[in-house]
């Protein structure tokens, strides 16, 4: 896994990605021992999400090229988020924002989405209880309860939430979205519950830099936990002590 995490930003095709991952993974398994467990993933129908899992993302900015927008496009395609040609009010679940760095990269772009805080300010301020955190750490909006007051948008330090200003069409069955409610990245909860990767991660691994790792931070053997242990990573505005699910590697 490590060599895969360490790789530079060359075009990452899926085969080499998997190849690297598999060779590293098999090193950790004792000879003759088959390690077969899907501990953190498979949940039976009818079973609740539990705090055994804590879903997270690790984004390696060194592998995230400036100008690449694949994760944003994949996210919006997956969740039926459409532009009305009005960038100021269009909903955005992921934004590529430009931040100032130092030395070799004086300026670079990072993708910012809902950071899935352990202590989410959006949940604290919500007057109706619509803004909520699932047991496995995914922060969501219950649009049946949302009154569109937008307190959560003000409370969020990451500007991660969007208000839906216009009538929606072409929603996906798993991502209902309607005018007058607030929405944000769901970490592709419908996919996670089906043992699949979030759309942005899948796209990034297949077609872009392979900068994103998704997994269970609580599971010590997951790729994301290993990468987090091996390399330094940062939370944006870590000083707020919100304990984010989304971590970044390579930001100063």
């Amino acid at each position, binding site marked *: 896994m490590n060599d895969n995490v360490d790789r530079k930003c060359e075009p990452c095709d899926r085969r080499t990605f998997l190849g690297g991952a598999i060779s590293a993974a098999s090193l950790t398994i004792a000879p003759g021992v088959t390690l077969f467990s899907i501990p953190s993933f498979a949940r039976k129908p009818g079973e609740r999400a539990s705090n055994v899992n804590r879903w997270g993302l690790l984004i390696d900015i060194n592998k995230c090229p400036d100008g690449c927008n694949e994760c944003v496009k994949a996210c919006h395609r997956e969740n039926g988020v459409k532009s009305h040609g009005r960038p100021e009010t269009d909903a955005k679940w992921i934004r590529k924002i430009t931040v100032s760095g130092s030395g070799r990269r004086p300026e670079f772009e990072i993708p910012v989405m809902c950071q899935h805080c352990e202590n989410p300010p959006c949940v604290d301020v919500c007057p109706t209880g619509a803004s909520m955190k699932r047991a496995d750490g995914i922060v969501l909006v219950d649009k049946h309860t949302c009154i569109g007051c937008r307190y959560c948008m003000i409370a969020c330090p990451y500007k991660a939430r969007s208000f839906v200003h216009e009538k929606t069409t072409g929603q996906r069955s798993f991502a209902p979205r309607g005018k007058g409610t607030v929405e944000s990245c769901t970490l592709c909860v419908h996919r996670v519950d089906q043992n699949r*990767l979030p759309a942005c991660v899948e796209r990034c691994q297949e077609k872009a830099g392979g900068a994103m790792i998704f997994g269970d931070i609580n599971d010590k053997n*997951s790729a994301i936990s290993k990468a987090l242990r091996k390399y330094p990573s940062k939370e944006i505005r870590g000083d707020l002590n919100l304990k984010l699910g989304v971590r970044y590697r390579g930001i100063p």
Partner: protein
Amino acid sequence: MMTQLANGADLGPEIFQGKGSECVAESEFMRINHMNVLVHQGEETLREGIRGGNFSLKECISCHVVPGDDGKPVAFDSERHFCRSCHDYAAVSIDCFTCHNSVPDVEEFTEKSQNLSIMLPFLGLTENE
């Protein structure tokens, strides 16, 4: 159950039959309780993460699909939409479809994205397993 006119014609709304042989519950039960079970399950799915329940709006929409003149499913703005056929008759407005889509998903997932192999790295498995 339906009230009939003297000439035998139904007074009730004209309802398009679903694709399946039977509904997830008795029709009589569904007529009275569909909104409650839908809201209840929707809440459990969103807040608790419970998947795979019987009363899913998504399943209603895909089973009770009504083909339009072009062969494509009709949306809620058509009078022939399954939900509308009854709700118009009973003069009960619904706002489900301001957020939910009233036609089934066009499945655009490629086979590749559903392939489990992409998940292997963080399951800690090798390709053979």
